[in-house]
């Protein structure tokens, strides 16, 4: 028995297959979930993958947030189900108010695609225990609406509670406040980030490194030891 990790496909998801592959590489069993299906099929964790669900119409993630599958994801996440939102998945999590703050267009108004250096600020979440706190990693970043914003009170609270999980290093690619690349909820089971760990799990592709793989081994370790 290994852990079953669901990956939701929304209309416009792009990275659902890569995410499934990353889960398999980590030794867990990927389970395809469909946006119209409320049933999570007994998965132990859920990943909301990157892409442009519903064409980013209205706001990135705004329409997906109301899809049938999200009703169950929101309910279960509040009850402790581990959920990871990558890129568009992060946008969906902020729109669903599972994570504080919001995502807006990059400050330079252009799409950006680059290998991004990050610092792991919190290695205690369900998705980051296989990193070391302070570790520097390189994973791909590709987005249009990657600017993380929140009011000063929320930002101070996130910092004080150690809920900034990843920070951009050397270069802020989108104008995110306080160089925030990823955050977690109070319980640490819900994590969202803009860069794409699933694209950095094999030496052959992506950054040529496997710096993203620990996301998926972290959750497996967490679930198997639970």
């Amino acid at each position, binding site marked *: 028995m290994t852990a079953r990790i669901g990956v939701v496909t929304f209309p416009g998801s792009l990275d659902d297959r890569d995410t499934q592959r990353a889960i398999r590489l980590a030794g867990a069993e990927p389970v395809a979930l469909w946006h119209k299906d409320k049933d999570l099929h007994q998965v132990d964790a859920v990943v909301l993958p990157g892409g442009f669900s519903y064409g980013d119409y*209205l*706001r990135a993630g*705004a329409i997906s947030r109301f899809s049938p599958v999200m009703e169950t994801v929101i309910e279960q996440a509040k009850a402790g189900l581990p959920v990871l939102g990558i890129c568009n998945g992060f946008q969906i999590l902020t729109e669903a*108010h599972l994570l504080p703050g919001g995502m807006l267009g990059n400050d330079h108004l252009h799409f950006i695609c680059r290998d991004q250096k990050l610092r792991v600020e919190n290695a205690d979440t369900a998705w980051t225990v296989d990193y070391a706190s302070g570790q520097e990693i390189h994973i791909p970043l590709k987005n249009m609406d990657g600017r993380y*914003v929140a009011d000063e009170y929320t930002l101070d609270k996130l910092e004080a509670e150690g809920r900034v999980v990843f920070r951009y290093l050397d270069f802020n690619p989108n*104008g995110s406040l306080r160089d925030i690349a990823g955050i977690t909820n109070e319980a640490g089971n819900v994590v969202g980030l803009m860069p794409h760990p699933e694209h950095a799990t094999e030496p052959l592709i992506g950054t040529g490194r496997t710096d993203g793989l620990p996301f998926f081994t972290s959750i497996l370790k967490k679930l198997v030891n639970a």
Partner: protein
Amino acid sequence: MARVVVDVMLKPEILDPQGQAVQRALPRLGFDGISDVRQGKRFELEVEGPVDEAALARIHDLAESFLANTVIEDFTVKIEEVAEAVK
């Protein structure tokens, strides 16, 4: 048929690079004296039936939960008189 307009704007403290890009283009186009531009969204809802308090309350809920993300945006709801189409 009545029209209800929902205007959505980024909160004033949030940077609006689109508005800034528009503002920076103005002097080049010969428009002087405009110190700031902020860009928002306007939704025109054609409402079936009367726009009474209950209908407005529903539209307010819709705006608050969906059309705007109140973490980053403010919104206003107003009824607009629709002129009869001139044949």
